[in-house]
């Protein structure tokens, strides 16, 4: 089979799941047995729950194998390559027959992720073969003016994917209207929201589309220098961006008079972040590029008027930029065809938490949360009860199960008290304690507050103390009111989005899960059995066989008992570590 290709997915998630070893194994088998196929690399197609993934393209079409190990790789090569019989049970995606994971792709529309997992991210030729750099060429050959480019982006209805949801076209127009000898364009690749990894996947899987988006933006606003601010936790993304920029420079796509446009000089630098969530905020990010502490400042002036080194600056998110080339090439209407009245196009979500099919999905705006969780996501792990989704990370909120028919668009999600955010969607089941979730996010924002505004700095600390107290069974009747009061004050008196949105996780959980707060405060119970301090472990005498296992594993010797006799947990010594519960083979231990 001469034209057969074997492609291994080597994104960060694939590598963590062992794709590197699988790649080496296939390479070794190919050499040892002199197999005839082309071995290639790609990035993530979003099926993180089936990593490592290996795609085989033969004369019949494409077959993607999932959960590949070194052993199954050997088997797959033997059967599929040598004997031309694909192993159907291992295939997770193909157009040739129905696979068990077919629902994951049903309903997805790939615009921002159009190339992720479909090409080698380290090859500019493969990007070009998939319409890469055609949009900027189109602008050049058809003499499309700056105002026309901006108008197209306006008409497409594209709104910033970094969280704010501001019209991208409008932002470009402001930056274009501010005249200056030097202007900057910045790509925000700080992706600080814990539990979100859309931007990482785009940067690792399709770095050129981000570069092309930035080049088009630079043309539109007349910027001559670009910066990509990428968090240091993404070493692979940084590596691939550097490769992509080198390739683009060699082809003359970055540099002077690029794409034959007289006077269009543009190049890009990468700036590695140094670990501060607040640096995702645009003014803090700019301060950080300038080499200072990443503290936000008052707006206006907005970056479009006075940004990096006081020059007009336009800043957009990775996913926003990745959409741009597609919009220019296919037109505004093609993009605006998808979505709802005020939220056009598609949005990428990172599905994580207690979900079966965790990964990356790109769906048209307007799909319901329930469809994402149950159709694409395959439902909850172990078929437990679905409780809520968390959208928008530390600035967002929890949407409860009974509102799961909410559609995803900026306005509908805002109406629930959550925000669309950058696209992290963390799914929670009946075992997740909502008070603990609120505490978790406040712990995060408290640590990440830059300290400039008093209410953000001290208010988040006070809220965290109260929440911690509640989860430890020391809650007071007045705590809920105090939390709401503090929340409103922090929202009103913080300078930047971090403080203004920090109380959202608390407010939404109080709004939708007040009964859980009350159970913690009044009954000193955690209904989800998650807050350790509130649990009681007990041995059920009828079920205990006296095997002594729990006694052995107890780290603090809190269990009394002799062989063949019923054991007892000494409550005053128990540290509630749960070891006995997880080790007992007879389900003889209960948690209350």
């Amino acid at each position, binding site marked *: 089979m001469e034209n057969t290709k074997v492609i291994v997915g080597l994104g960060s998630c694939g590598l963590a799941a062992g794709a590197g070893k699988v790649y080496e194994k296939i390479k070794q088998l190919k050499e040892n047995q002199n197999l005839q196929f082309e071995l290639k690399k790609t990035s993530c197609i979003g099926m993180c729950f089936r990593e490592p993934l290996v795609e085989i393209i033969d004369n019949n079409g494409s077959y993607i194998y999932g959960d590949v190990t070194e052993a199954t790789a050997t088997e797959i090569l033997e059967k599929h390559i040598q004997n031309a019989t694909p192993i159907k049970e291992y295939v997770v995606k193909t157009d040739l027959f129905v696979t068990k994971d077919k629902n994951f792709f049903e309903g997805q529309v790939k615009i921002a992720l159009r190339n992720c997992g479909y090409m080698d991210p380290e090859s500019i030729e493969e990007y070009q073969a998939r319409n890469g750099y055609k949009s900027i060429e189109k602008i050049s050959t058809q003499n499309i003016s700056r105002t026309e480019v901006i108008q197209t982006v306006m008409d497409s209805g594209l709104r910033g994917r970094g969280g704010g949801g501001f019209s991208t076209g409008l932002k470009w127009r402001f930056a274009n209207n501010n005249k200056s000898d030097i202007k900057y364009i910045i790509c925000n690749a700080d992706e600080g929201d*814990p539990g979100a990894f859309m931007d990482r996947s785009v940067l690792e899987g399709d770095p050129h589309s981000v570069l092309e988006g930035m080049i088009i933006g630079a043309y539109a606003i007349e910027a001559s220098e670009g910066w990509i601010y990428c968090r240091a936790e993404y070493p692979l993304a940084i590596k691939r961006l550097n490769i992509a920029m080198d390739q683009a420079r060699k082809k003359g796509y970055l540099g002077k008079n690029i794409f034959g446009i007289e006077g269009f000089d543009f190049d890009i630098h990468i700036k590695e972040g140094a670990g501060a969530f607040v640096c995702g905020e645009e003014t803090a990010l700019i301060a*950080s590029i300038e*080499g200072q502490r990443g503290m936000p400042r008052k707006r206006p002036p907005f970056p479009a008027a006075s940004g990096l080194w006081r020059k007009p600056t336009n800043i957009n998110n990775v996913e926003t930029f990745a959409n741009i080339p597609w919009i220019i090439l296919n037109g505004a209407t093609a993009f605006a065809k998808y979505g709802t009245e005020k939220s056009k196009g598609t949005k990428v979500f990172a599905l*994580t938490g207690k979900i079966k099919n*965790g990964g990356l999905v790109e769906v048209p705006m307007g799909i319901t949360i329930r469809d994402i969780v149950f159709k694409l996501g395959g439902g909850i792990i172990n078929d437990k009860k679905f409780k809520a989704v968390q959208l928008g990370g530390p600035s967002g909120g929890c949407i409860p199960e009974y509102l799961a028919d909410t559609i995803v668009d900026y306005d509908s999600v805002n109406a629930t008290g959550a925000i669309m955010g950058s696209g992290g969607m963390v799914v929670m089941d009946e075992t997740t304690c909502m008070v603990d979730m609120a505490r978790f*996010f406040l712990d*995060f924002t408290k640590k990440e507050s830059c300290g400039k505004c008093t209410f953000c700095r001290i208010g988040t600390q006070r809220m965290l103390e109260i929440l911690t107290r509640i989860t430890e069974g020391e809650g007071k009747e007045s705590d809920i009111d105090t939390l709401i009061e503090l929340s409103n004050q922090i929202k009103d008196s913080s300078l930047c989005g971090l403080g203004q949105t920090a109380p959202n996780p608390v407010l939404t959980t109080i709004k939708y899960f007040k009964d859980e707060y009350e159970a913690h405060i009044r009954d000193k119970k955690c209904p989800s059995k998650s807050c350790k301090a509130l649990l009681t472990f007990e041995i059920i005498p009828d079920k205990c066989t006296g095997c002594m296992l729990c006694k052995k594993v107890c780290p603090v010797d809190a269990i009394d008992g002799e062989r063949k006799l019923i054991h007892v947990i000494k409550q005053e010594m128990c540290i509630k570590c749960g070891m006995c519960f997880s080790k007992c083979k007879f389900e003889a231990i209960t948690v209350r």
Partner: protein
Amino acid sequence: MRIERIKKEEVVLESDNIDLSLIDPIITKYKNVKGNMIPILQKTQETYGYIPRAAFNKLAKETDLKLSDMYGVASFYAQFRLHPVGKHIIKVCHGTACHVQNATAITDALVEELKVKDGETTPDNLFTLESVACLGCCSLAPVMMIGNDTFGKLTGKSAVDVIRKIRETETGTPCKN
């Protein structure tokens, strides 16, 4: 509040044999570059694993960066370390997805195994245990990263196994249990 990162001053016993000439090339390269402070500190840290006091002083002398500004920046960003660290830094993810999938159990197991608290270094200087927020592999939660290797779908036990393996290769002696 980020100010919490400035821990109470410990007596730092910095060995006198820090080779300060190692950062000369960094100084030459970045000396007059706009916005150079963070890259200079990052490269210095890459050289020593942390930023030694002596290096701060040298940078203050040989570039036009001010000591107070550098300390302000170094204490602001989570990446910068002002104290030496172990050979292997274990970064346990405590992002949202990992938290929901019980990342606490991973840290607890490692605290138990290494007999150090979160943020501390083992007496043999082999491991430093840290918590981080999101490594971007959320679908494999809970996750930890050691060097450039990421380990996913962990349990307390499998995390401890990874550490034991590293310790075995480092010390050449198999572990008791």
